[in-house]
Each structure stands twice: as structure tokens, then as C-alpha cells.
């Protein structure tokens, strides 16, 4: 488990992180989201141990991350970096060797990984001959080639097409399924929503929301979409605590006050005619993110 506790970091006058805490469990993909400059990259660098926090601690399986243990971490920085004129395979072997593998093991590790990422036929190409998406796959391969026990990936999906996103998601899910903690950041909230077991939203260096996708989207008001073709205005007036939010033809979005039973609304609907649809309105992660950002900004 990777546990970050009470991290604070200041760059001159800028408070980059404020008392930030969260943990990534074994086999869990933790998605880290936030606006540009919110502190994601700083957090990841601190998690990796290449940057020191002013306060707080990072513990991996109970011990601080050292220079030696960093070899067991796969890291994909926000600023991509590979050698343009080196071949793909030589590049991966080099990173594997810097993580402590010998020449034979490095070669043995690189080939199947390229196979897995669909790059086997490009193994002997120079990196600069590859498309942007394929270069990004090589970057992921470079993070995975040493068979790391922890993955820290800064914006792994940036600039990828949907097919490449799926391929990369599959690989990350497989890594998590093998029991590794995976910490990633992304601006693509739909991918985070699909892929990540838990999500942390960071704003101005502080964690403003953290939990499973279900927990986060369950926050906020309880609203239901009810599709009642025969209903006219005021059909649910009898239900105490129900208010209309939106009305679009036969579809009604109704918000329920705390403690209001949604079955009352359903019965009121059935009383005026058939109910074609009755479903909980869950905000997407994107909507949640927007509302959280607005809340915390106005509070700040």
C-alpha cells in the first residue's frame, strides 16, 4: 500500500500542497484529478521520492521510499521523455538495466511487453519514426519494463485516441489485477470514472473529495428522472419534500429532500398513468468535478 499523509509543499510564495493525504491499496487504481496547477504533478513527484515534501510522509508498505526502493516503481512523468534516435527495444532495455536488470533479463522483459502493447513489429524502429500514440505506448512500456511493484503515471492518457486509451486501460487494469497499486492522474474524467476504483479530487493543493466513483457520485442531492407521458403539472404535489428541477416533455427531474421516500413519487406517477422510466439521476464524474471546483473556489 502506498500511503501519503499530510503532505505540504511550498514553492516560494505558492502553497502547492496543503495537508494532502490519501492511500492507494494493493491492486487498486487510484485516479487523481484536478485542474491544471492543482498540485497533481507535485504530489506524484513527492510520492516517487524525487521531490521532498516540506511536511508529511510517504510510506510504501510502511517504509519510506528510498533510492533503492525507487527501482521497484514504474514512473511515467508528465513531460514525456525518451531518446528520439534510439530504437524502441534498445530504449526499453536501457531503462530495464537502470532498474537493476542484467542484459539478458532486460531483453527478455522488453519483447513480450512490446508484444502486449502491439509494438512488436516496431521494436527495431527509431522512436522518432513512431506516431505520437505509439511513442506514448513506448513510454508506458518504459515504465513497465522493469516489472515494477508500484506504478505512478502522470497523465498516461493525454493525447491518445480512444483505441489507444482502451489498450492502455487494459494494460493498467492487468497490472492492478496482479496486485500492484496504480496511481494515475488524468484530465479525462470519463476514463478515470471507468477505470479507477477510487478517485481523489485535488484543488489548490488540497484534497476536496476522495472515494470510490459510486461514493463520490452519490454525494449531492438525490434526484430521479421519471418518464410519465400522461402527467400534467403538479402530478407529484402530494409527495412531501419533492421539488421539480427540470421538465422536458414526458420526462421530469425531481429532487427529493433528505428522508423523502422515492416510492411515493413512483406511486404518484402510476396514479396518473403508465411510468415508462424511473431512474436515479447520478452526476457524472465530470459534473461532480465541476460542482466541486465551483464550491471550493467560492469557499476559497
Amino acid at each position: 500500500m502506498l500511503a501519503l499523509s499530510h503532505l505540504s509543499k511550498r514553492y516560494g510564495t505558492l502553497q502547492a500542497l496543503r495537508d494532502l493525504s490519501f492511500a492507494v491499496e494493493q491492486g487498486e487504481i487510484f485516479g487523481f484529478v484536478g485542474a491544471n496547477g492543482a498540485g497533481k504533478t507535485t504530489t506524484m513527484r513527492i510520492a516517487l521520492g524525487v521531490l521532498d515534501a516540506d511536511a508529511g510522509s510517504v510510506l510504501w508498505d510502511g517504509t519510506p521510499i528510498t533510492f533503492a526502493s525507487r527501482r521497484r516503481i514504474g514512473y511515467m512523468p508528465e513531460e514525456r521523455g525518451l531518446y528520439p534516435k534510439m530504437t524502441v527495444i534498445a530504449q526499453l532495455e536501457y531503462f530495464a538495466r537502470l532498474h537493476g536488470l542484467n542484459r539478458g533479463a532486460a531483453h527478455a522483459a522488453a519483447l513480450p511487453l512490446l508484444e502486449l502493447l502491439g509494438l512488436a513489429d516496431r521494436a527495431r524502429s527509431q522512436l522518432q519514426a513512431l506516431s505520437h500514440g505509439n511513442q506514448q505506448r513506448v513510454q508506458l512500456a518504459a515504465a513497465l519494463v522493469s516489472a515494477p511493484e508500484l506504478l505512478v503515471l502522470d497523465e498516461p492518457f493525454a493525447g491518445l485516441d480512444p483505441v489507444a486509451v482502451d489498450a492502455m486501460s487494459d494494460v493498467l487494469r492487468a497490472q492492478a489485477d496482479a496486485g500492484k497499486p496504480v496511481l494515475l492522474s488524468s484530465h479525462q474524467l470519463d476514463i478515470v470514472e471507468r477505470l479507477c476504483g477510487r478517485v481523489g479530487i485535488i484543488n489548490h493543493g488540497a484534497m476536496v473529495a476522495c472515494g470510490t466513483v459510486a461514493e463520490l457520485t452519490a454525494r449531492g442531492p438525490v434526484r430521479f428522472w421519471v418518464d410519465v407521458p400522461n402527467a400534467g403539472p403538479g402530478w407529484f404535489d402530494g409527495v412531501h419534500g419533492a421539488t421539480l428541477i427540470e421538465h422536458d416533455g414526458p420526462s421530469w427531474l425531481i429532487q427529493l429532500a433528505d428522508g423523502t421516500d422515492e416510492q411515493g413519487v413512483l406511486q404518484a406517477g402510476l396514479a396518473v398513468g403508465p411510468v415508462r422510466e424511473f431512474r436515479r439521476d447520478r452526476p457524472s464524474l465530470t459534473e461532480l468535478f465541476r460542482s466541486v471546483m465551483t464550491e471550493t473556489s467560492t469557499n476559497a
Partner: protein
Amino acid sequence: MLDARTTFLDAMRLTLVVAAREFTVRIRSRVFIITTVLAVLGIGGYILLQAYVFNKPAVLNVGFVGGAEQLAAPARADMASLGITVTTHKVSTVADGKGEVSSGTLDTLVSGSATAPVLTVQTSADGTLQTVLTDLAREEVLNGLLAQHGIPAADIDRALAATSVQVDTLTKPLSAASVQEIVIGVLVSGTLYISMLVYGQLVAAGVIEEKSNRIVEILLTTVRPWQLLLGKIAGIGLLALAQVAAVAVVGVVMAAATRVVTVPTVGVAVAVGGGVWLVLGYLMYAFAFAAAGSMVSRQEDVSSVSMPVILVLVAAWVITLSVVPYSPSSTATTVLSLIPLMSPLVMPVRIATGDISLWQAVVGVVLAIATIYVLAAVSGRIYRNSVLRMGGRVRLGQALGLRGSAMAGASGASDAPAARDHLM
């Protein structure tokens, strides 16, 4: 203890992995292959030119016919004393002789009489031969006139033979061998100068490459800055050594085979000394170039940021060229050869001319190593503080860690965990 040793071995292993990448990637590059081939062809061509054009022995084939024949022996002797070899041929008729001049087997035909020789040549007569023959003919005329007045020719010859100009030399002249030694020394020194300049800038460009494509951020998660710096300098240094060795081997073998160089004893000392001073000189300048490179983030800035280092190197070369070849054993040369940053360029000349004592050689090497140590420490610090600072040019004060800054944490990134490691 064992842990410390394992850590050290592991650190060395990582440095070697870095060095191996630098070496193998670059040695396969087209630029390296082309420049090496050109350098080898250049040195080979230079030696062949020396061997077959400039050093071509001047042998003059001169045919004598009729009365002029008695000039053959004295002409050959006089020409030999002037350093020109003449082969004399006896020709039966003037027509035959002219035929041989046209066909090229003879350079010159001397016909006519001993007192009035006639030269037949293809286009122009050899000036020295013409002068020598004129003198000989005049001597014959003079001998004839004196004989008419009863003075025997033998007496005159005896008197003339005893007459010569005496030369007093105040300074010992340079022998052909010592000129050759100086030329060899300057050639080696020039090779070192070019290598240090080219490969030093390659180090700067390599540092900037890793910084500009941000790969350094990944590298520094598992490699310490000093390992990365040392590995890069070692790998590129081996490349320089390989290229110089290729040129040197071709040069030495061809020079020996064509007998352009006739001072073989110098060879071993110059080869070993040149190799040692290439390594020392390269290391001095490479650390400085690496530090300069780490302070900028864009490849376009490589020349401006390495300019101070280049200026020092060029100045050292200009001073070397303007002092050392003209007075290889002077005090000035001795002093210059001991000054670090200059010594790699001056020492090869002193080794070639054999004007160096053992203690001076040792002092020179020790001073160079001390300088490398200091430069490596300062460059290591600049590199460590600058290599993760992206964006604009890093100020020297920040690079040396003299001024605190917002990004101090990022720059010292790999150090703090290192310190923790040592405590554990």
C-alpha cells in the same frame, strides 16, 4: 561494510550502463562513422603526399657526349655536395642523346666541349646543374689560359682545394630529426585539441538532449546525477579515444611503411603520452562542457552556453602554437606545460622532442588530476542543481547552489533520498 561495497559496485554498474549507452548509440551514428573515415583518409593522404611528393629524392639523369664527357665526374661531385644526386650516362651521339631527352630517360644532355658545354633539355634546365657546369667550364677555360702562361693545372687545383669559407655557428641548428619531432608533437597536440573541442561539445549537447526531452526526470529516479554525468563523460570519452586510436594506428603504420618518419624511438613515448594527455585533457574540458550544458534547456543554446569553455580551449591552443614549436626546450614552454588546461596541448610536443624530465611529467599529471578533481566537483554541483530546472537559462549562482530558490527542492531531488539511504 559489505553493504557499502555492494552499493558502490552497484553505483559503478549503473555508471557503466550509462556509459555503454552513450558509446554504443554514438559509435553507430552516421556522423561518427563518416568523420572517422574522413580523419583516417586525411591522415593517410597526408602521409602519402609527404612520401611521394615532397620527399621524392631528386635524381637527375644527365647524359654526356663528346668533349663534354670530362665534365661528368666533377659535375656529379659538385652536385652531390649541394645535396642533389646526379646519375651520369655516357651517350654515343648527340642525336641519340636528344632522343633520350625527348623520351624522358634523360633529364639533360650535355654536349659540346668542356669549355663550351651545350645543354639540351625538354623545357627548362635545372638551375643548379647549369650553374655547376658554368663554373666547371670557366675553370677549364681558366686552366687553359694559366697553362699557356706556364702555371700547371695541378698547382692551381691544389691551391683552390685548400680554399674554403669557414662557418662559425652561434646556436646549434635544428637537425632534420628534431624538426620532425616538433612536427609530430604539434600534430599530436592538434589532434588532442580537435578531439577535446569536438567531444567536449558533444558532452554539452548530450546533457542538453536529455534535459530538453525531459528524459532526465525518468533517469534520475534510479540513477544519481553524478552517475549520469560520469557515465556520459566516460562513454563519449571512450568514443573520442576510439577515433583518435584509429587515426593514430593508421598514421603510425603508414608513416613507418613509407619511411616518412625516421625517428621510431619517439613513436612509443608519443603514443603513450598522447593517450594519457588526451584522457586528462578531455576530462578537464568535458566536465566544464557538461556543467555548461546542464544550465540550458534548449539545443539552440549549446553554442552560447559553451562559449566560455571553448574560448579557454582556443586560447590554450593559440598560446601553444605561438610559443612551443619555436622553443620546445625554453623555460616558457616548461612553465606552460605544467599549467592545467594548457598542459594537454603542450605536453605532447615536449614528449615528442624528448625535452621533458620525469619529475616535470609527474608534476604535470598530478596537477592535471587535481584540476580534474576540482572541476568534477564543481561541475557535479552545477549539473545536480541545474539539470532538473527546466525553462530558461539557470544562473550560475543558482547552479552552484549559492542562492536559494523556489525550485530548490526539485533540483536537490535525488539528493535528499540519497541522504536517507546513507542513514539506513
